[in-house]
């Protein structure tokens, strides 16, 4: 992408300086609209129970699932609620999945005295062969067995199962289906090359400086201070930069200060203060040249529950005067130059990774799109705000670019849907460990990773 355009003038700078170095104007923003209104609950009150989240989720997705069920198993399939089930009758039930996992961390078990349990250390995966699936609806629940992959599914998914109830009270599943891809959005993409750079996991404040040169190289390439003329003109076509979370490193969390006595920690400054100052300087350099959208992540100074609210602009005094800086929520949805972007900082995908047998981040990302819900495991194992009116994580329209941040490596796939949907799935790798960012070309929905590297003491690059 970059390279083909830039190649002709590759060696251009290996010569005497020209009288007037060419400058390139940044491509203007054709159209930008932030569609993340759903992710900003106006009033936040935590007085409600989380059961309402599941109730609105089921109510919101039930019509869609019923339509899918009819289209899949015939128009005359019997749709029943759990309370209306009759033994032996083949029918279809729509409900919420609940997975009973023995290894699932439970705070009640931990503090229960009769068990005398040592708190469970965090495991990479909590699945076990003995896990069971239970289908719940508004009133009842029933155990599922049969043609359903227990290991792969996670709690909170809404699905439709087709089968019959057995004598022993379990439901024998013959087939099941999810909400599938949401209806497509019209395509208004640009006709010429335009790029959006996706990066995540900058990991500032980590105390190790290897990624810092790469970060500076990234900033310099985007602002046009590196590269020959061809490359610079390509960089001028980057219309936006999206930082998808984890701008601060995990080391800035300083969790041990909570356990230490106050007199030991009184004079120490939180590690995140220094890191945010560094972030501010980097953002200032970026904002003078390109519009930036900053999404918070797991280790960033904002709230923990999803949807995470934007970082506060008082933390970024140098960069916030610039109108090119946009502090946005996690998850983030926006229309950039006619292309709908939807993405998270990766907490939803990594949570599903822990509770499911799916190993590939791209697979999980695709599965959430097919299940019609950004984060089904919230609020069970992932913190989330107790919604009661509507669940904003239900996918109602199919985005054109669907990304998740802080993945272990870069992957991308173009998914074609039955109703004409075209989605580019991108897993944005963690920059602090891979020094890789993603360039998405809006014209043809292709994605290319871009790696930055310096040289270390070792000879091999």
């Amino acid at each position, binding site marked *: *992408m*970059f*390279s*083909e355009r*830039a190649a002709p*003038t*590759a*060696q251009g*700078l*290996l*010569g*005497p*300086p020209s009288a007037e170095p*060419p400058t*390139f*104007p*940044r491509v*203007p923003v054709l159209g930008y609209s932030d569609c993340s209104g759903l992710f900003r609950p106006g009033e936040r009150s935590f007085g409600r129970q989380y059961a309402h989240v599941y109730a609105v989720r089921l109510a919101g997705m039930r019509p869609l699932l019923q339509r899918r069920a009819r289209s899949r198993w015939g128009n005359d399939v019997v749709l029943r609620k759990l309370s209306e089930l009759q033994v032996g009758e083949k029918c279809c039930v729509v409900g919420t999945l609940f997975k009973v996992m023995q290894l699932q961390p439970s705070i009640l078990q931990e503090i229960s005295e009769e068990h005398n349990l040592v708190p469970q250390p965090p495991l990479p995966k909590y699945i076990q062969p003995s896990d069971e699936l239970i289908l719940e609806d508004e009133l009842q629940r029933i155990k599922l067995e049969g043609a359903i992959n227990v290991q792969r599914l996670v709690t909170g998914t809404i699905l439709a199962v087709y089968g019959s109830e057995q004598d022993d009270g379990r439901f024998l599943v013959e087939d099941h289906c999810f909400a599938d891809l949401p209806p497509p959005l019209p395509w208004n993409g640009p006709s010429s090359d335009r790029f959006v750079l996706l990066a995540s996991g900058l990991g500032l404040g980590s105390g190790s*400086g290897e990624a810092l*040169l790469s970060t*500076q*190289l990234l900033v310099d*390439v985007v*602002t*046009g*201070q*590196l*590269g*020959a*003329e*061809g*490359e*610079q003109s*390509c*960089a*001028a076509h980057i219309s936006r930069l999206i930082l998808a979370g984890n701008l601060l490193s995990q080391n800035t969390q300083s969790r041990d200060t909570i356990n230490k006595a106050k007199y030991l920690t009184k004079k120490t400054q939180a590690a995140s203060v220094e890191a945010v100052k560094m972030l501010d300087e980097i953002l*200032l*350099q970026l904002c*003078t*040249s*390109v*519009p930036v959208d900053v999404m918070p992540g797991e280790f960033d100074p904002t709230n923990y529950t999803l949807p995470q609210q934007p970082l506060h602009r*008082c933390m970024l005094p140098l960069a*916030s*005067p*610039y*109108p*090119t800086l946009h502090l946005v929520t996690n998850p983030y949805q926006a229309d950039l130059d006619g292309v709908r972007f939807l993405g998270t900082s990766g907490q939803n995908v990594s949570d599903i990774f822990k509770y499911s047998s799916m190993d590939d981040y791209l697979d999980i990302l695709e599965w959430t799109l097919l299940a019609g819900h950004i984060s089904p495991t919230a609020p069970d194992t992932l913190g989330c705000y107790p919604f009661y009116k509507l669940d904003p994580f239900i996918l109602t329209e199919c985005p054109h670019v669907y990304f998740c941040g802080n993945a272990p490596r870069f992957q991308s796939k173009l998914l074609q849907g039955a109703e004409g949907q075209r989605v580019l799935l991108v897993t944005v790798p963690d920059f602090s460990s891979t020094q890789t960012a993603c360039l998405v070309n809006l014209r043809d929905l292709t994605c*290319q*990773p*871009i*790696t*930055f*590297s*310096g*040289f*270390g*003491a070792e*000879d091999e*690059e």
Partner: protein
Amino acid sequence: MLYDYVERKRKENSGAQLHVTYLVAGDLLQNGHMCHKVAVVREDKLEAMKSKLSTIASVHVYSIQKALLKDSSPLYNTDYDIVKTNLHNCSKFSAIHCDAAVPRVRPDIPRAQTSLQGSSQRENDTDARSAPAVNGHGPPAAKHPSQQHKGIMGMFAAKAASKPQDTNKETKAEAPGVSTASSKPPPKNNIINNFFGKAAMNKLKVNPVPEQPKEEKEVVKPSVVEPESSPNPVVEKPGKRTESARTQQKDRKSKTKRVDRSDNEEERDPENTKRKRKRIKQLESDSSDEEADVPQPPTPEEEKAPSPPHIPALKTELEPAAMEVSAGGRKRKRKRVLKSKMFIDEEEGCMGKAGCALPLSGTHFIDDF
């Protein structure tokens, strides 16, 4: 440009060995997809890197050093330093010019900042409740120190446990103005007289007059504390009053003053209150004192404890020197009881009688409580 320089220098063969680092960018087949790679390489690795890339997008000189670099970190460090010093002009030399990146005008920002500051200072106050010594600088609004004091006094007053006293404080807290302050003492004195006896009233009437001009001086100070100074003379502890005078200047001091007031109520509670007083006096002695210990000079002079050793003690208390205060504080503590006795002995007239009456009624009063 740098390339040109390198070429010229090398042609000159001036002997100084220049090590050049290049920036190479291009496409590289990695993990099954074409990855655009941007790398900083040493000169000797340049050709190797170029051969690895299938398409070369750009090559140029990144930096020149005299010494051979083992690591790319010095490159980053120098770059970082330069960038830091030129943060606001960092795009001056960049090839890409963005029209949208014009910083917003300042007035947008300070508005938000003041509201943030206001809220943060309120939080400072609440934090300072637990650390009175640290909060040397008073927050801008007079309300804040008064509320703060109420909080601290709430803690101390719990021991004194006098409701009228609290209402006193509250009324004082709500009277920031000097004018109101001067009008306040009489009603407050009425209340306090309940504690200290009627004779105190006479003394108080004498006091507000000379206090007036000095009170006006203190307009600027959080005059929350000020009204208290007038009822103070009733108390037979001028030392405390001097303390209270000092407390007017600083929030801390007003806290201590209130502490003293409560201690006054408890009065004869021996070691506890004295210890408390001592601690707080030391706190206030740390602060740099300003002059206007206004109400105090007149009142002790009036009370005129003639006994010479006590006068110096008084005077040391009056003078705002910190050292003296601390010394005086210690002396004060011990002499407190004596002074009151001196009132009894040497004061004449109603004041003497008042002095006479005071300790007894004071103790009575304490017993009642």
